[in-house]
């Protein structure tokens, strides 16, 4: 398979921040349509890594190729979902999604049609006229996912998208995301600090440690989806990752 994302020697440190770099020199290759989860405690550099791939930050060293092309900035088919949703509060759900589509040159009427189609895909058919504040946290994240998909992105970057949700909604959203992902295959890089979230979602989990931010554990999960939390293989993995995060390994 072709590599969707190729990271080599990537490092990031901030000028105002002395001490070890936020992200050490890391290498990572992600295959097309692979679902990769970056897992770690706060400050381990996972969000920085995601921002670098998105082009929202510039690397201190190393390089990133997305689809074989070096990343020089945001946009260009790198969809992103933020923890807080980051929907535009002055636009309805439909217009939020159409905003993304229109920016890649889709005509107005077609963008509205696409928005409705994506709303239906994320289970929000008929809610297009609602403003973000009229939607629950989970519904807002569904719109945010639909908005990222409206870019027709090659890769989907998700920065703790369900981190602000209660556990019940969070579990539902994980199922929803897998259902959407099954219909619209994308390369996904998903940042979380929930071990179970990673186990339920990922093809591959990368556990990160801080200062310098680096990968300390890599596990491939070949179990079919939907996965059950009672699966002994997952529980064994949970223990192994937890030990690693705690620093026993």
């Amino acid at each position: 398979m072709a590599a969707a994302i190729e990271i080599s020697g990537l490092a990031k440190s901030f000028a105002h921040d002395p001490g070890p770099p936020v992200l050490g020199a890391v290498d990572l290759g992600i295959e097309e349509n692979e679902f990769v989860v970056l897992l770690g405690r706060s400050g381990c550099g996972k969000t920085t890594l995601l921002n670098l791939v998105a082009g929202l930050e510039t690397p201190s060293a190393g390089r990133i190729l997305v689809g074989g092309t070096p990343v020089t900035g945001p946009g260009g088919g790198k969809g992103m979902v933020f923890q807080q949703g980051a929907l535009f509060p002055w636009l309805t759900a439909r217009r939020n999604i159409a905003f993304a589509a229109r920016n890649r040159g889709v005509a107005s009427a077609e963008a509205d049609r696409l928005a409705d189609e994506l709303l239906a895909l994320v289970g929000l058919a008929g809610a297009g006229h609602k403003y973000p504040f009229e939607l629950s946290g989970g519904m807002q994240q569904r719109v945010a996912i639909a908005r990222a998909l409206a870019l027709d992105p090659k890769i989907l970057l998700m920065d703790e998208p369900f981190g602000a949700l209660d556990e019940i909604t969070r579990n539902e959203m994980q199922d929803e995301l897998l259902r959407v992902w099954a219909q619209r295959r994308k390369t996904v890089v998903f940042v979380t600090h929930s071990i179970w979230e990673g186990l339920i979602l990922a093809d591959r989990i990368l556990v990160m440690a801080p200062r310098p931010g680096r990968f300390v554990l890599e596990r491939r999960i070949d179990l079919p989806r939907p996965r059950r939390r009672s699966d002994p293989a997952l529980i064994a993995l949970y223990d192994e990752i937890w030990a690693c995060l705690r620093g026993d390994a």
Partner: protein
Amino acid sequence: MRARAAEILVPLAVLAAFLGTWEYAAAAGWLRPIRFPPPSRLAGSFVDLAFHGFPEGITIWVHAAITVQRILAGHALALALAIPLGLLIGSHALLDRMTAPVVAFCRSVATLSLLPLALVWFGTGEGAKIFLIGYGCFWVMLSATIAAVKLVDPVLIRAARTMDTGGWAIFLRVVLPATLPRLLSGARIALGVGFMVIVGAEMIGTIRGLGSLIMEARTFYRTDITMVGMLCIGAFGLAAMAALEWLEARLVPWQARAEAQTR
């Protein structure tokens, strides 16, 4: 429905009780009418002002129209200058740091202390009055605009950038709509400042306007007219605020409804 009725009836009852006590106190001789003309006297004065005017021929409608014109002109001028300048300063951190002391200083200068200067610069005509109102409104609006830009949630800008939006498009399609609620409330506060400045601004060089009506009445010991003038300014101020709040609810429905929901 019952709660809504109480919301209106209770303040009305308080107002009626207040006016009733006042009227009774004047009739019983506890209050000297020259100092505290009773409500019935004020009503009579208002009718007199409405038909005959003070000074003779200049009715309260003329005074009010001129005053409102001056406030709106000063307010509009201030907004036209403060909004573009505030957007510029707010978008550039360095510019903001350079101008912050100046803005804080000029905002703190009591507008009416500039009256003597305004008279020297603009003469006793309309210019000085509009300048003073404009000055008061300008600094309030400028700091509101700068704050509005600085308070735009950075994640909205990052999100827009991931959607191939950059430069001017970010400014027009993200920053501007994001600042709109705070710009509107800034405009409302600035208008309130205009109503506070107007009486002083109309003290000199005119016999028309509610401010000059109040001052003229003072020289004739017509406390009743002074009070009617005050009440008129208060009523117009209240109406202007209500109008702007209505406009806010129309222009930024997402904000108004979000606030109503958290209330």
